[in-house]
């Protein structure tokens, strides 16, 4: 598991950074049997997530093969995915 990025499930559209990533880095990534390259658009801290594909606004963000939240704006491939562009759906009394 000694890679720069960890993708947990083939359905995932985000990967976890296994070290601090710098803007402009180009990383090789294994999903299932295939490999592809991803350009990191901004610094991403250890343990934080990067988008593997473009994610449209209101579309699901998927990790562990499950929905972890919805994009609150369009997220580009290689962008940092976190609380500034994703929101959870659970325990949201102010939304009902």
């Amino acid at each position, binding site marked *: *598991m*000694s890679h720069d990025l*960890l993708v*947990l499930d083939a359905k995932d559209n985000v990967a*976890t*950074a*296994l070290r601090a990533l710098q803007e402009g880095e180009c990383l090789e990534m294994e999903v299932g049997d295939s490999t592809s390259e991803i350009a990191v658009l901004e610094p991403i*801290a*250890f*343990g*934080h*997530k990067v988008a593997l594909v473009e994610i449209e606004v209101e579309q699901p*963000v998927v*990790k*562990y093969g*499950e*929905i*972890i*939240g919805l994009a609150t704006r369009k997220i580009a491939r290689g962008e940092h*995915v*976190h*609380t500034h562009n*994703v*929101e*959870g*759906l*659970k*325990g*949201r*009394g*102010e939304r*009902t």
Partner: protein
Amino acid sequence: MKFLGYRRNNGKVGLRNHVLVFPTVICAAAVAEKIAREVPGTVYLGHQHGCGHLGEEREHMIRAMVGSCSNPNVAGVLLVGLGCEMLTAELLGERLREAGQRVETINTQAMLGTEEAIAKGAELAQMLLDEAKSVQREPVEASELMVAAKCGASDTLSGLTANPATGAACDILIGQGGSAIFTETPEMLGAEHVLAKRAADEEVRRRIWEITSRTDERIKAMGLDIREAEPGPGNIEAGLTTLAEKSLGAIRKGGTTPIVEVVDYAQKPSRKGLVIMDGPAHDVVSVTGMVAAGAQIVVFTTGIGTPVGSPIAPVIKVSSNSALYERWKGNIDLNAGAILDGQETPDTMGQRILQEVLDVASGKLTKAETLGHREFAIHTIAPTV
């Protein structure tokens, strides 16, 4: 697969041989604490409850107190009451005897004040301690173990390394006929469908949906936003974005076997295997509840680092990343960060965790025990009057 444990008269097996000095109400807490100080080797278990419990909370509190005092790691209990409280030493003593526990009681109001209560209490505590010392460890099967799996101060690596490794350890133990329990209902939100699929039968499936939707509805009914507390500020800084993400990582600590039962807070399971306890995510409150439910040992994963232990059960700390392990070697027993470093897989790490469980079960002290971490807090469910 065996370990060396203390076989109790009621058939249960303890990993430690504690004599507790337990105040039945906070008004007797100082007397109890002083008794424990007079008799080195006893364990004082402080809390702020015992009186003014409304409705369901009365039985809930009795269950948590009786469960804590009758955990198999406890050889004997001195209950220190005041006399006029709701949960008296007589009441708790009777429940404990029904559970097969060795118990002595003392009431402060029946004594000539604090000093006599301490003197008399110390005699009783010494007697219980002498009795406990006569019990010897003997080889017992690993199937006698109930491991509590807990994660706290988590980072995004917790769900990738330490939790799946702990889950692998639970899988092996359950394969040997043992049990594992995990809780933190709020941290099942967003992952309830995954858990429900693993229910052993229809009733368990119904209960999983019941406890998770009740937690969600309760928060909604109050017009609150769980994002104020979940994920916590430290979780977010460490890369966890949403509660669902935290939940999906958190449930991995229970492993992959069918969920055989859903119990209430501090309720003893009636079946062997993987059990869910309905309860809060608060670290100390949830560990207290699972130990009261009968877990003799805790495997506690952490990514940011938390020192908490238990006065009753040994707590094994597993770090999710090597950076934490290096910084916190004095607190962390095992490093699942080795998975990221390529030295271990979740399965091999799971075997190491289970071996540590067996070693600690047989008497090896955990870092939290050596450091004297004895945090204890009971969940409250109603306003105290």
